[in-house]
């Protein structure tokens, strides 16, 4: 049955099957969450009563840094550690065609046929934060279905796509030798959210300079908050065990210090914020599509109304429509 035609009863049944280990049901539910709407809301309701039992690791970095290859080797370590591991791998959706080429799996053949590994490619579908709109809820679904460890690979990012930081428990930022300099290493954004830095392709020239720039940028942080730096050559599997050890040690540190609990609070906060944001945005799109803004726009163009005043009027109208939508 098409995802768009599922009733609440259907999604409840799918959820029951997914919890019992049916991967087809789990996969279908992720599609439901991606599509949004009533069926997705009904899945969310089914998830709400469950506590979050898993642990989530985010892998982010620039396009071509080697994230997917690194994840392929990490899956082996994660498998040995947790017994089962799920991966959500996000790639960009074209803003032009709405299509996407999701290629992360090309580098993930080592564990692709294992029943203990679940890999799902997600298209970003218009989200600009490095993840897809449904990544957070898919993570909660995986946790509810008993996956103890979840890896999330972002789209190739620049400096400010930081949704991963409010979605995962440990953030791994992947860089390469020859990357930037000390000024880059001190810039705001991506460099601030890393719990662990990986210098991948460590067999390439420029390794020492990159490590030195990173170390000096991190030197001002107190030792217990200073991210580990791990060198890897993911294509040969080198450094994967070191990276996994660094992840385990970060996990242990934030669990003991109580920071994990506050991170989880922030994650919920970000998710709720994002949910309201998405609904308001949809309502705003409708408001403009309905022509409600047209007369105000004309007035602004004619100089009879200023932009801020037009914004006030439309914001009031937006709020009215949003509350009517909830009441209805």
């Amino acid at each position, binding site marked *: 049955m098409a995802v768009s035609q599922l009733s609440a009863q259907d999604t409840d049944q799918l959820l029951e099957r997914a919890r019992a280990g049916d991967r*087809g049901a789990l*996969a279908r539910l992720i599609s439901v969450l991606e599509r949004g709407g009533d069926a997705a809301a009904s899945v969310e309701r089914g998830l709400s009563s469950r506590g979050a039992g898993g642990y989530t690791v985010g892998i982010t970095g620039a396009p071509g840094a080697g994230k997917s290859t690194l994840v392929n080797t990490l899956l082996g370590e994660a498998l040995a550690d947790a017994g089962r591991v799920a991966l959500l791998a996000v790639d960009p959706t074209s803003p032009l065609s709405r*299509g996407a080429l999701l290629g992360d*799996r090309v580098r993930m053949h080592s564990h*692709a046929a294992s029943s203990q590994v679940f890999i799902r490619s997600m*298209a970003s579908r218009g989200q600009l934060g490095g993840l897809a709109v449904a990544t957070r809820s898919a993570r909660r679904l995986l946790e509810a279905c008993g996956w103890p460890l979840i890896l999330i690979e972002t789209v190739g990012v620049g400096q400010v796509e930081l949704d991963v930081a409010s979605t995962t428990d440990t953030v791994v930022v992947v860089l390469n030798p020859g990357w930037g300099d000390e000024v880059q290493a001190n810039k705001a954004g991506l460099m601030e959210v890393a719990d662990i830095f990986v210098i991948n392709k460590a067999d390439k020239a420029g390794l020492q300079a990159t490590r030195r720039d990173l170390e000096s940028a991190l030197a001002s942080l107190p030792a217990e908050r200073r991210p580990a730096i791990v060198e890897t050559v993911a294509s040969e599997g080198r450094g994967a065990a070191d990276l996994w050890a660094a992840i385990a040690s970060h996990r242990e540190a934030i669990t003991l210090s109580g920071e994990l609990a506050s991170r989880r609070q922030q994650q919920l906060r970000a998710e709720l914020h994002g949910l309201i944001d998405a609904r308001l945005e949809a309502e705003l799109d409708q408001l403009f599509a309905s022509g409600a803004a047209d007369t105000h726009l004309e007035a602004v163009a004619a100089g009879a109304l200023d932009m801020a005043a037009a914004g006030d009027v439309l914001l009031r109208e937006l709020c009215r429509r949003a509350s009517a939508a909830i009441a209805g």
Partner: protein
Amino acid sequence: MSTAGKRILMAKTGLDGHWRGPTVVAKALRDAGFEVIMIGMARPEEVMQASIDEDVDLVGLNIGGHVDVAVRAIGMVRESRPEVPIFVGGVVPPHAKRKLEGLGVEVYPPGSQLPDIVAAAMRLTGAA
């Protein structure tokens, strides 16, 4: 209907290193609005697992002459996701074309036109 949110798995079951064909097809499908999940060269078990986990609406196989492997992959996908259509491209000898079509699979041998392949994907996923 539209291609929005429709997902297509693209795999190479042949052992040759020819990537150009499947890459060109994948890009054409992307430009038509599909989400194309590329898994590269893959064993039949991987094709099957990916067709389940990725909840795809269509499976495309580039078979590069290795018909037996393709037939095994088709059999495994059919068993786990019988409702999912499959189409095949790449170097397909005439006898293999007949064999594959006998399995209910659409075949696009060398010389097939991209618009025809995209149109087939739209028809097979119900997007057309």
